């Protein structure tokens, strides 16, 4: 069944007509052309389609769009302002924590949620928190370094 809903995406209210079965991923990509949100597995197991919902990472491929009503949705398009990169993005570039980068938007958002929840995580906590995001280029040690660099930049002292 079709219904009109309002989604709050990257700080703006957006009206959109959706089918009940539409996933948040489908709506973000097909309707709003937010191409940073990508499907990797379709079953919520790879983290490629991660977006933040009220600051928490969710797999948008595994969430119905209607369930996102009234929540703050953040994609990577809403993270940086113009050409200026967010501290986490800058850390990912400087520490070469990206290769094919298909997973990168999901990782960057997951790291944002992590550092907001735990400003000074242990290695163990980082690994646990990011274990739902896969990088098939195998760049995990670079990603760990990027997380530490972002932590330092975002939380001096």
């Amino acid at each position, binding site marked *: 069944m079709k219904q009109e809903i309002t989604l709050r995406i990257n700080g703006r209210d957006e009206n959109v007509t959706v089918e009940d079965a539409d996933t948040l991923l489908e709506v973000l990509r097909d309707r709003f*052309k937010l*191409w*940073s*949100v*990508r499907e*990797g*597995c*379709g*079953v919520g*197991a*790879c983290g*490629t389609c991660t977006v933040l919902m009220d600051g928490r990472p969710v797999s948008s491929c595994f969430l119905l769009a209607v369930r996102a009503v009234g929540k703050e949705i953040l*994609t*990577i*398009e809403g993270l*940086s302002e113009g050409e200026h*990169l967010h501290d986490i*993005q800058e850390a*990912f*570039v*400087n520490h*070469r924590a*990206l*290769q*094919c*980068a*298909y*997973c*990168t*938007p999901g990782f*960057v958002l997951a790291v944002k949620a992590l550092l907001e929840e735990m400003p000074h995580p242990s290695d163990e906590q*980082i*690994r*646990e928190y*990011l*274990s*739902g*995001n*896969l*990088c*098939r*280029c*195998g*760049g*995990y*040690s*670079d*990603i*760990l370094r990027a997380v530490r660099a972002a932590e330092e930049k975002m939380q001096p002292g």
Partner: protein
Amino acid sequence: MGQPEGDGVENFAVVGQSVFRKDGHQKVTGQALHVGNIEMPGMLHVAVLRSPYAHARIVRVDKSKAENLPGVAAVLTGADIAKMPGVDPYFGPAFRDQPILAVDKVCYVGDPVIAVAARDKRTAEDALQLVEVEYDPLPAVLDVLASIRPESPLVHEQHRPAKAFADLAHVKAGQQSNICYHFKLRTGDVDRAFAEADQVFEDTFSSPPAQHMPLEPHVTLVYLDENQRVNVWSASQTPSYVRTELSQTFGIPMNRIRVRIPYLGGGYGAKLYAKLEPLVTALALITKKPVRYALTREEEFLTITKHKVIAKIKSAVKNGVITARKCQVYWDTGAYAEIGPRIVHKSGYTSAGPYRIPNVWIDSYCVYTNHVPAGAFRGFGVPQVIWAYDSQMDIIARAIGADPFEFRMKHALEEGEKFATGTPVRSFGVKQSIQEAADAVGWSRPRPAQGGTKLRGRGIAAGVKAVLTPSISGAIVMMNADGTVNVLSSTVEMGQGSETMMGQIVAEELGVSFDQVHVVQPDTDITPYDTITAGSRSTYHMGNAVRLAAAKVKAELFQVVAKKLEVNADDLVASGGRIYVGGSEERGLTISQAFLAKFGSLGTTLTAEAVCQPEAIPMDPETGQSEKCTEYWFPSATSVEVEIDPETGRVQLLQFYSVGDTGTAINPRHCEQQLLGSAITHLGLSLFEEMIFDEGQLVNGSLLDYQVASIKDLPETIRPIIVQVPHESGPFGAKGVGETGTLTVSAAIANAIHDAIGIRIRDLPITPEKVLRGLAERRGEVLPKDDAR
């Protein structure tokens, strides 16, 4: 290949510097172009009905109900494609054996049978529900060793060579066998050596089929432009090949096909040769509309795999030295050969290892079965043969009381010695790599302390891969009047940093800054032919091509400057965006001034093309001997320390060192990243990845059931080590590195496990269950069998 003067590892401005990658900003903001982001007006979407049988005849298809569903533009069968005038319904890089859609029979569970193009994906899927297909099941072959028996059912009655690549010219038409290609190597007198041996070692090792798992699944978009030319956007590692294949399959002239490749969300070999392109082209030709097909992850599992391999290896030892080795390697290439024959050949000939063994006998077989087709996977089959030979190196060393490190060093080939193929090895840093790996893990120090109930051990493994030869890379370098440069190359940027590598080489050669070089993405209308973005070949081949093209542009500029300033062109250098007399910088021109001197006009360009085309001497078909079988070698070594919990069988990696001989590192940090990234992926392949089949049906075909390495699997200590043995004709001495880190991971881990608990694992993956079974067997217990397999 000639080298411009002044070479040396030192004194480079950009080469050898770990500059940041060119595509960093657009990738970290999620704005990089992928095929999935491209939309066309009226674009149709595709869904495919796949075979539920491993082997069956198609008796009847009724698609009328599906065709009448509103929103459906086409319902296509293999029989429909076979009726298209001038169209070959079969394609493939080695044999034309793979139907665009099954024509008269299906050959594996998941084989595409019917394709629907509709206004949206859901309509296409709904239409599939309305198609009726009746099958008549045939006996299937689901075991690679059973498949080679003469009485086995045939997967294909005939094998039709494709003639697409020069290195596959020796692949012959065959029939009445499931062996579609057999590579033979014979050197020395193996039988005599075995007869005279003190000891003979005989082992069988297996590697399972596995998934490449690029996070971007295959996706292809095809449309006809205003000239009715076929335009293809595809996530492919082979733009040039895709154009050739479409031209041959559809009988369309090459200049009426345009293939463009944006950034890839990973490839790892999965996106080589043709995959979705023939089907999507057929649908676009029939509907006259743009058509895009994006695979689901579940379909990805049914499209291409890593080869399952069974390797039997038998070695003779006399006076502590290996005197003979016999290798029988069976490759399960699945229902369609794809690039199997190339893998079976190129990897098959390295099956005895980078070691001095005077008598070698190799049989390497490419075998059809009714499984999902197998193709190239980062490492191109070499990880599977190293798993066998470098596990056995440890078995032999331990059995004769030799140190595994010293045993390898004693046998490793020295510069100039002959490989088993008869080819003298050059730029062959195998011993250096083994030494570095041993030093990193502290091999000479006493065995690690045991951590309570957990048991620790160390392992090392070495191996080598030879680059695909012959192959071809063409490039065009276009210099603009303002000193900026466009590089036209068909090398695909899939994460490996090829744009950055090419930018560094061209900037170095022309003496301009790295930022001034723009690399144009593959577009067969404008970028020249390249064999393939794979096989650790782009830095060498495309690197040489762009360097030589840049050198031609530079030579022309030098002529202009020499004439204008009345100096000798041989005395000129290019640096900092200027061309001047070496030693007196003031006697020169900026690039813009040189352009004005030549053309007298703004906006002009200076363009040159170059081709890098190393040749091989074809191997003798009976003995596999060749004075030159490859252009270069890339050695690998891995050392690890593991800790094993005997209660759970869990293997934890405490230390992990990945060593590779890259030649001169154009970008050292990126070389290190390639080593580690491929090593980490292979860590998952070694410890838990496996596609499990039951009667031809894939059991774990989703990411819920198939586990790959996550950040939790990262070893506590992990470090890449690059060994730089320059290659005499590599660009600035560079070789390749994309696959090196994969090669020796599995054997190093198994060797460390043996060091820790005395259990020898011969079948990948090394699951906790296999460790526990091994421990139980050693205690004389028998654990119940697992019926699930």
